[in-house]
């Protein structure tokens, strides 16, 4: 096998692996839309985008806009989750009456973005 063909076969097998991992994470997230499954989906989607970035010459990027949309909705949800986590952990006891409603609003916003992410993930399927 020539170098070029070996390289193409290697990239193709990696792409198949990344797509399978994405589809697995997507299935798990659509079954249970939890923060943990969302993080796994984010990792798989980012890895897939990174593969398209690195090997753009050899693997044509597929459904890039939908992938970008999914990643941006996931980023919103995970950013809010991160803010909530730190606020819960670091809030001063004297500020409790102000923190509690803030946490409630953040939770609502997180749920809202989770639903968006669910919709975006439902639309983005790949075939390995």
């Amino acid at each position, binding site marked *: 096998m020539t*170098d070029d063909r*070996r*390289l193409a076969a*290697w990239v193709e097998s*990696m792409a198949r692996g990344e797509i399978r991992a994405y589809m697995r994470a997507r299935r798990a997230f659509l079954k249970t839309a939890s923060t943990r499954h969302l993080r796994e989906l984010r990792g798989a989607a*980012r*890895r897939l985008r*990174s*593969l398209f*970035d*690195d*090997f*753009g*010459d*050899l693997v044509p990027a597929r459904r890039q806009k939908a992938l970008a949309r999914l990643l941006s909705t996931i980023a919103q949800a995970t*950013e809010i989750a*991160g*803010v909530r*986590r*730190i*606020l819960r952990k*670091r*809030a*001063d*006891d*004297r*500020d409790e009456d*102000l*923190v509690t409603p803030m946490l409630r609003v953040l939770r609502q916003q997180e749920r809202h973005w989770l639903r968006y992410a669910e919709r975006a993930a439902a639309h983005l399927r790949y075939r390995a």
Partner: protein
Amino acid sequence: MKARRIDLSVACGIEDAMRRIAIVRFAEVLTLAPALSTARARELRNFRVACRRLRYTLERFTPREPSLLEAATRLKQLQKTLRTWRDCQNILVTLPPEMSGTFKRITTERDDALSRADALWRDAFATYGPFEGLMTFTGLGYGVEAGAGAN
């Protein structure tokens, strides 16, 4: 920040393609590293994104080039620390002024995160440090060593 396009049409085989990609992604990280000393939100974000991109690339290459594993692990730690910085920063800009106690605590956590990230970055370039394998593989990063973030 968009990833730089990599021309693989001239790559001679898998090893060469891997090296070309790692060089471009590592160069992106090195270029953005001064963000650690300026501490500007946008620059730090770009640096974090570049670290993540390089990490994913290296993780994909480790089955063929295990010497890159340590660098990938260090980039993961760096990315996590920078995420904490970002989360703290996001809260601080929305916190009402009457929550001074909470503001102080979160500011401390944010500043600690940045110091940790800077230390993780500097230490990575030490002799036999986590970036040793990456530097050997790409030929980049020599002479950066301590003070990299302070440039």
